[in-house]
């Protein structure tokens, strides 16, 4: 860093004025913190969404915690979180590394990969629902009997279909993150490795992967915490069915609140969701080690 003197140096040390954060803070308070306490309050009430709100002690919490559907929703959420992670992470890492090189055809491919991310989740879900229809979908349409499974109606199969569609939509996003991460790695490292005679695979494991450590943590945090928020896609694709097989926690919360009109129980589920989300985010940040927030760029 070049040494600077006087007031400009003090500005750099102090950083920009805290005032610049004020509008963001106000919005955060208004739309995140205050509603959060609102939900906490509602979880101790009985309310059908129309009539008056009555304080009802712990009854919503007992309902939610003793309901086997809640346990099932947690289990389904955990499964989707696990499978989406092990499917998405390696694919997006490899695609990110692949598209980070500068050949023209890779740039063209990167644009193609990126397309699913531009579509709304609802549109993706509707399209897949039509394609997967066992009677009028892709399988019967193309005359391919193995594609004519009861993809969305079979309780054992449907979870993996959901994981696949989620991956189809979100791999492009994580690919983009990895692509950026790889492009930040100084080329000098690779040049040195080449001189030492390292092959491509060796370079990947010895340079690329370790250098991507923080990118991996960022992407994984988004994947894991993000899978707590999968809602629209699953709601449109399966509605949580068949039975309760894809009734994720957020979906369960929505259906409890807006279909069964039990806002108290839905709020309790919302609080559980927030707690799990925070715990997971903290855990993943811990894995990043002490210097997780420091920049990796030389000289910065």
């Amino acid at each position: 860093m070049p040494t600077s003197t006087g007031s400009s140096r003090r500005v750099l040390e102090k950083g920009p004025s805290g005032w610049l954060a004020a509008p963001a803070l106000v919005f955060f308070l208004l739309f995140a913190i205050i509603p959060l306490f609102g939900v906490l309050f509602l979880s101790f009430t009985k309310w059908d969404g129309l009539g008056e709100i009555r304080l009802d002690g712990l009854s919503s919490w007992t309902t939610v915690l003793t309901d086997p559907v809640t346990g099932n929703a947690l289990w389904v959420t955990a499964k989707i979180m696990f499978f989406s992670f092990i499917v998405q992470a390696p694919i997006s890492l490899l695609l990110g590394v692949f598209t980070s090189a500068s050949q023209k055809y890779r740039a063209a491919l990167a644009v193609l990969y990126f397309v699913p991310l531009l579509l709304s989740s609802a549109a993706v879900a509707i399209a897949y629902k039509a394609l997967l229809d066992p009677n009028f979908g892709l399988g019967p349409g193309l005359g391919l009997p193995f594609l004519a499974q009861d993809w969305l109606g079979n309780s054992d199969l449907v979870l993996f279909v959901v994981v696949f569609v989620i991956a189809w939509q979100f791999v492009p996003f994580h690919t983009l993150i990895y692509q950026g991460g790889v492009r930040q790695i100084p080329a000098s490292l690779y040049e040195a490795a080449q001189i030492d005679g390292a092959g491509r695979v060796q370079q990947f494991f010895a340079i690329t992967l370790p250098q991507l450590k923080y990118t991996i943590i960022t992407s994984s945090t988004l994947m894991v915490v993000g899978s707590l928020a999968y809602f629209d896609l699953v709601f449109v694709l399966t509605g949580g069915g068949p039975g309760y097989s894809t009734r994720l926690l957020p979906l369960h919360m929505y259906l409890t609140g807006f279909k069964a009109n039990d806002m108290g129980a839905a709020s309790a589920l919302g609080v559980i969701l927030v707690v799990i989300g925070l715990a997971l985010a903290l855990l993943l940040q811990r894995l990043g080690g002490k210097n997780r927030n420091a920049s990796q760029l030389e000289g910065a």
Partner: protein
Amino acid sequence: MLKLTLRSAAIAVTAAAVSISLAACGSSGPASSAGNADSATMWGLTGGNQPVLQKSIDAWNKAHPDETVKLDFFANDAYKTKVRTAVGAGQGPTFIYGWGGGVLKSYVDSGQVADLSDFVASNPDVKNRYLPSVLKNGVIDGKTYALPNNNVQPVVLYYNKEVFDKIGVQAPKTWDDLMALVPKFKAAGIAPFSLGGQSKWPDLMWLEYLVERIGGPDVFANIAANKPGAWSDPAVKEALSKIQNLVDAGGFANGFSSIAADSNADQALLYTGKAAMILQGGWIYQSMKKDAADFVKNGKLGYVTFPAVSGGKGDPANVVGNPSNFWSISSKATDSQKKAALDYVKSGMFTDADTQALIDSGAVPVTTGIESKLAASPDKDFLSYVYGMAKNAPSFTLSWDQALSPAQGDAMLANLDQIFLKKISPDQFVSTMNATIGK
């Protein structure tokens, strides 16, 4: 000191900006298209009667530029969620579209819909235009809160005559007939029944009719009256076992639990000959008339009442379904919106043109004195059949998910889905549902 003032000023400015943008959000919706800012608003359902309602409102708006109504449409399931949330938040439409039953009662209990009793009393023309048996579904505790707005919708067993002829069989008259048909159609590679299982409510039609045929209308009347243990009636258990027997026999189309009724994929199986029969509401005639015009016009669509169950107590002429849909008027609407709404109810709906448009679309309006119009329609066979079915039914039970409270209705549909998937036993269903009584 200066710092403090600066901060509060910044907050005040931001807060003002926020409230301005919020206010903008709030008003951009209703004022965006037809009519002025204080137009009465109306939300209807897509499909079925959508074009009829649109035409009626267009005609009204043209003739009454000072009392316009702004109309939006939503898909069935989406509408049911949206309207309740909107009404609860004080953002509901002037005209609240409904089905009567427990849902209407929840609006009445929280004071969200206007009492129309005086309006009905002072406008005998309005009251007299309806079939009395339908009108009474909008009455709660002796007061009228909702008025019928379209057509009578009994649940009918439709069949594809072409595939029945191909196999050489007759439409089922009893449950045993129905079960005997299943292996015959399966052997021919045709699904015996189409079912929109992903939407869940089509599952319910099976339970409603079976309970009705086995135990008669009292079984559900007890459930709707929240009598303790009412689900334990043996008729419920027998009906659930019969459903699971039919699932075991392969009675429903491949992948029935991933077929959505909102996209009409279930009807498509029937008219494409992939399925032989479907148990669905009277309203699917309207959409098949549109989507499969030749199929309907060439008389390939058959329809019968739900089969009798041997030893059952219920009259085979009893009907389940929706007597009609209804308009309630929001009690939170402004005076001018309410006035426009009541004026439309009085002289804008069920005009001759409306009634004719309903009949032309393949529906039976819930009004009196339409026999000659029905007889003149190209769909007279189906329409007269439905009209007679509704008029002569000793009992017409409202669809259970609408008759019960929303919490019970939701639990019932979720558990019934589990019955069709064979994830739970009839006993488990009964004990789970007994636990929801009074909720």
